């Protein structure tokens, strides 16, 4: 494996991990709102969350470019406030991947949250647990399968994300060129096929690895139930 390929692999993993990692909490929050609250515009929120799935990725990419580019309103705001910049950086690739993965993470979590027995949460609160504690000790562990499923789908999607990423942060080797983008570049000419196949192989390995790890984790969790003792 060439050094460049290792670099691409590591970058992809970093981008996908960051995308999934940073999406999980907001996704859980949105899923919780959708599963548990009744409010005006709930269906609309669900629709908005689903949007990145429905639109061609290029559109989402352009949207991100307009909002989070170095000239975009949000991009400028974040730059000013936190010195955080997404434009044409790996962070931007992670943002794009995160946005695209978001609906895939939200749905399974919502599904799991809806399936959590409210009676158990009631029992927890009669035992004196405050809402955040009930959440951490009962709701969250019981929704874990959904969280896992969401994380796996999200991570896989983040690995494979292409359209929004290339549109938002371009295809800059070493900075934003993830596996998907590199494969795309190689596929532009027949000569690149061999190299592309190697990268595809890497992608597949990464995906299989992630799935195996997730299945293993899921099995451990379902066996143990987790040691959630505070």
């Amino acid at each position, binding site marked *: 494996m060439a050094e460049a390929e290792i670099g691409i692999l590591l970058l992809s993993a970093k981008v996908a991990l960051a995308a999934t990692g940073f999406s999980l909490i907001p996704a859980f929050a949105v899923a919780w709102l959708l599963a548990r609250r009744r409010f005006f515009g709930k269906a609309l929120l669900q629709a908005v969350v689903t949007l990145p799935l429905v639109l061609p990725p290029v559109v989402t990419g352009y949207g991100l470019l307009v909002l989070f580019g170095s000239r975009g309103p949000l991009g400028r705001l974040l730059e000013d406030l936190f010195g955080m910049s997404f434009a044409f950086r790996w962070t931007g690739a992670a943002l794009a991947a995160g946005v695209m993965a978001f609906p895939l993470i939200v749905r399974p979590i919502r599904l799991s949250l809806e399936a959590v*027995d409210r*009676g*158990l949460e*009631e*029992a*927890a*609160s*009669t*035992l*004196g*647990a*405050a809402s955040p*504690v*009930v959440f951490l*000790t*009962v709701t969250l*562990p*019981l929704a874990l399968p959904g969280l896992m499923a969401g994380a796996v789908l999200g991570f896989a999607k983040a690995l494979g994300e292409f359209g929004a990423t290339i549109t938002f942060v371009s295809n800059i080797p070493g900075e934003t060129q993830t596996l998907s983008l590199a494969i795309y570049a190689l596929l532009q000419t027949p000569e690149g096929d061999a190299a592309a196949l190697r990268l595809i192989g890497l992608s597949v390995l990464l995906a299989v690895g992630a799935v195996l790890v997730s299945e293993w984790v899921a099995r451990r969790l379902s066996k143990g*139930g*987790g040691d*959630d*003792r*505070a």
Partner: protein
Amino acid sequence: MTVLDVDISGRRGSFTVRAQFRAEPGVTALFGRSGAGKSTILKMMAGTARPDSGRIAAGSRVLFDSEARIDLPARKRGIGFVFQEDRLFPHLTVRHNLTYGRWAGGRRARRPLEEIVALLGLEAHVDRYPDTLSGGERQRVAIGRALLSEPEILLMDEPLSSLDRERRAEILPYLEAVAAEAHIPIIYVSHETDEVARLADRVVAIDEGRVRAIGTAAEILGDAGEDGGPVAILEGRVTGHDETYGTAIVALGGGTIELSERGLPAGARLRLRIRASDVALATTPHEGLSIRNQLPCVVQAVALEGPFARVMLSFGSERIISRITAKSADALALQPGKPVTALIKAVSVEPARLRPVVGE
């Protein structure tokens, strides 16, 4: 000393509840048929269901008041709730289920875990997950979880329904002790008149969501002994013992009764439970009988009930009920005012509940 004051009305679907009662420290039983609304009332007291209006107060603490717009969340009500369906946390071991009130609920530990585990016979199961427990084991964990949360009010919804008699006999005295020591109100739902008669200081009869009657176990269950027959409940005080035979002498309204029960402290107040079908009558005192308690009574009333006669007797200030066949009643020519001897076997008298000498 917390007195629980409940006065609520509310709905669950098409079912309406309207309940008003007081629960002093000690055991208050909610008694009523399946679907009468017992669980619904408990849930409203616990704060997991919301009454439409009314007020629930524990001493000076207002748990719910629709007018003052007070509605304490369940966790602040200081309750321990044994749900009818056990509601164990499937992702936690038995141990962590039991101690949940401590590590998650911030309830302070008073009773040691080991004591409850031993009481409930769960030693072998503390590190298992609930899904493989037997029905009775699950129920025991649920009881333990509520007890260990150090509640100020204990709500128990048929807590012993799937336990065998031996196990009940082990747990019941503990519950009695909890009620006596901790001086907290226990609201207890049960279909077992035995259990209710033994435990309850007060019985609230629920019917179609309303309170049909409130009274002592004697008053409410008087008509429903464990085989459906009437029961008399007398209050007495231990005055002495026969050490040789391990019997206790209990002074009642107008005389004494001998009780085959060891270890009753002298001076202890007792409630005696006498099934009407355990009371035989004689027109004269008899010798050569194994029946040692022969109480001189006066017939108050005789009511025929099919093949039976229910005979109300006064024994000093107390009331005793006897149930005999109509044929015997005729044979003995019973009628109001007639003095008779009530024969009660010492083994038939059940100390329904022992009260501490102090108190009251």
